[in-house]
């Protein structure tokens, strides 16, 4: 072939000679498998394997350094009677429900404001994202200082404003602690809602609002009859993501309270960590984290079904 002169054009070869691998990849079934392989390996290694391992751990009595034996549902039965677990379950549901409502309301409000035209809009939009961009652990440490009973800037402000007379122990009081943790979660979660809902709002043609305005709909009716129904699919996706994330939240509580005071602020994840890693009862920790699974599965199924219904209507 190399001797073929430049002057004589090489004849067109319909099926040039190929290596065995090339020939194999010409077949779509093989090609598809080859392209899927990296994803399957990654998902298998980092999602499926740990999940299966977790399930297997949860039905043994494995401790750190001690390979356990099969004990069936003993771990789950134990949890059933575990008061701290009850608190963690209650906390997780409360935490998720309250923060999601606030994040949605505040996020939607912010998104509606940011969807208007004003000077410095781009700057404000960038700033809104800050709580979302800063690493959670760092910002949570900042909050921890603000909640500190002695050095609390919050206490200082409230004291100066004559609203309180003594120190408020934000993270030391069980009720205040869970509220404080919720506040930080809302602060951190609002930007995600705001920016995503803003993106959703921008897909709604301004002409629709103009048409509705001419049709006689005042601001509230324009929101209710035009904006909200058109934003609903996006809202459902955002809420779905947020619920999953909030339900499995760990960092905030771990940094702020570590589950305390007196286990009052434990969530599924922090309690699983405390038992599994802190105490070394790997199997019981696995059982706690596995207890989230059916709940999340249900949430995902319900919301995906709802989204599909909204989108096909």
């Amino acid at each position, binding site marked *: 072939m190399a001797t073929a002169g430049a002057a004589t054009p090489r004849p067109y070869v319909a099926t040039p000679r190929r290596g065995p691998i090339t020939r194999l990849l010409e077949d779509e079934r093989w090609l598809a498998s080859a392209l899927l392989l990296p994803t399957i390996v990654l998902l298998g290694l980092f999602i499926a394997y740990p999940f299966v391992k977790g399930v297997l751990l949860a039905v043994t009595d494995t401790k750190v350094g001690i390979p356990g034996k099969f004990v069936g549902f003993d771990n789950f039965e134990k949890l059933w009677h575990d008061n701290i677990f009850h608190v963690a379950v209650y906390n997780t549901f409360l935490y998720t429900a309250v923060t999601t409502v606030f994040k949605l309301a505040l996020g939607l409000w912010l998104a509606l404001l940011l969807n208007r035209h004003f000077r410095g809009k781009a700057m404000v939009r960038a700033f809104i994202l800050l709580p979302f961009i800063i690493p959670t652990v760092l910002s949570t440490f900042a909050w921890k200082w603000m909640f500190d009973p002695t050095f609390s800037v919050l206490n200082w402000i409230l004291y100066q404003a004559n609203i309180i007379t003594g120190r408020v122990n934000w993270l030391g009081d069980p009720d205040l602690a869970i509220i404080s943790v919720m506040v930080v979660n809302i602060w951190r979660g609002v930007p995600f809602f705001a920016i995503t809902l803003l993106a959703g709002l921008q897909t709604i043609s301004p002409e629709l609002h*103009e*048409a509705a*305005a*001419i*049709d006689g709909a005042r601001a509230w009716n324009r929101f209710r009859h035009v904006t909200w129904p058109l934003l609903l699919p996006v809202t459902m996706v955002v809420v779905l993501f947020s619920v999953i994330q909030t339900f499995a939240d760990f960092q905030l509580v771990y940094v702020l309270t570590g589950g305390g005071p007196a286990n009052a602020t434990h969530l599924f994840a922090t309690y699983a960590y405390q038992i599994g890693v802190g105490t070394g009862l790997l199997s019981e920790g696995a059982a706690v984290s596995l207890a989230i699974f059916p709940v999340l599965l249900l949430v995902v199924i319900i919301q995906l079904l709802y989204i599909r219904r909204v989108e096909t209507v």
Partner: protein
Amino acid sequence: MAQVAIRNLNKMYDDVHAVKDVNLDIRDKEFVVLVGPSGCGKTTTLRMVAGLESITSGRILIDDQVVNDLAPMDRDIAMVFQNYALYPHMSVYDNMAFGLKMRKFEKSEIQKRVQDAAEILGIQDYLKRKPRQLSGGQRQRVALGRAIVRHPRVFLFDEPLSNLDAKLRVQMRVELKKLHERLGTTAIYVTHDQVEAMTLGDRVVVMRDGWVQQVGDPMELYNEPANLFVAGFIGSPAMNFATVRITAENGDLWAVGDGIRLKAPAAFANSLGPYTGKEVVFGIRPENLRIVPDTDPAEMSIDAIVEVVERLGSEILLDVAVGPITMVAAVEPTVRAKVHDRLRLAVNPDRLHFFDIERETAI
């Protein structure tokens, strides 16, 4: 039923003066078309009438009531948008009923009105569908229906046909005309298409760079354009222009240019007189040129060489070279002209136009 008056209307966006001193009186039941190239301020004017755009200065009156500070909903107008602006999550019925629901009409009245409008527009069978299940033409009808059911004082149309294909556009144009005749509601219609403007409008307002250029009925604009812009904008194919010098010979005025030597008709004697020795723009529409034998007197004709022959069926468009410029002549379909042919084109002396070269106004 209403009349609309626009008084010294201006719109400024930051540093852009979009609408400049627009004055317009729209009579009851009149169909007025605002036409002009994009950016001429026609849509902005319409949106100010609708209340969707604030007014920088001037006044808009509907039935002698100043509506400057009225919200769109309180002006009793209905608008049809370029992209239809149908509510995508509502059925056709709900789209049409929305305005009535917002205005708290009785359910039975809403039903009656929507049914009536649907019948007029031939969309009774689609009332339960969602807009996305409809074709462009059907959506357009729904948008019209939404406007009709309200029985508003004024219809506002913002380029409603521009998203339809050519054939459908012609069809909808006719239907719009019929609809207006049937309902008799005052209408303001914005378009950039001069054919649409001419066919639909009782009167046409030609705009450019925010200024109103001319207001008149379609034939008035066509026959007596006020300036060079209107002359070139109205009519298809466009009017031919050439720069000529006015000379006086033996008591007659002549328009002389490269390849052109025409005797100005007596009617122009007074108005063209002051331009003697000066250059003006001479204009003649393609349909006012016709092929004549070489023996015809040269004082009312132009010698030309055929460059392109466009056979349209009903007529033939000849692109001809007249000296250094190109003109278009619309001639009978029976004409057998070939490229490079030399022709003598007679001008219709009643159809000559002259324009001041600086001010661009008609002479």
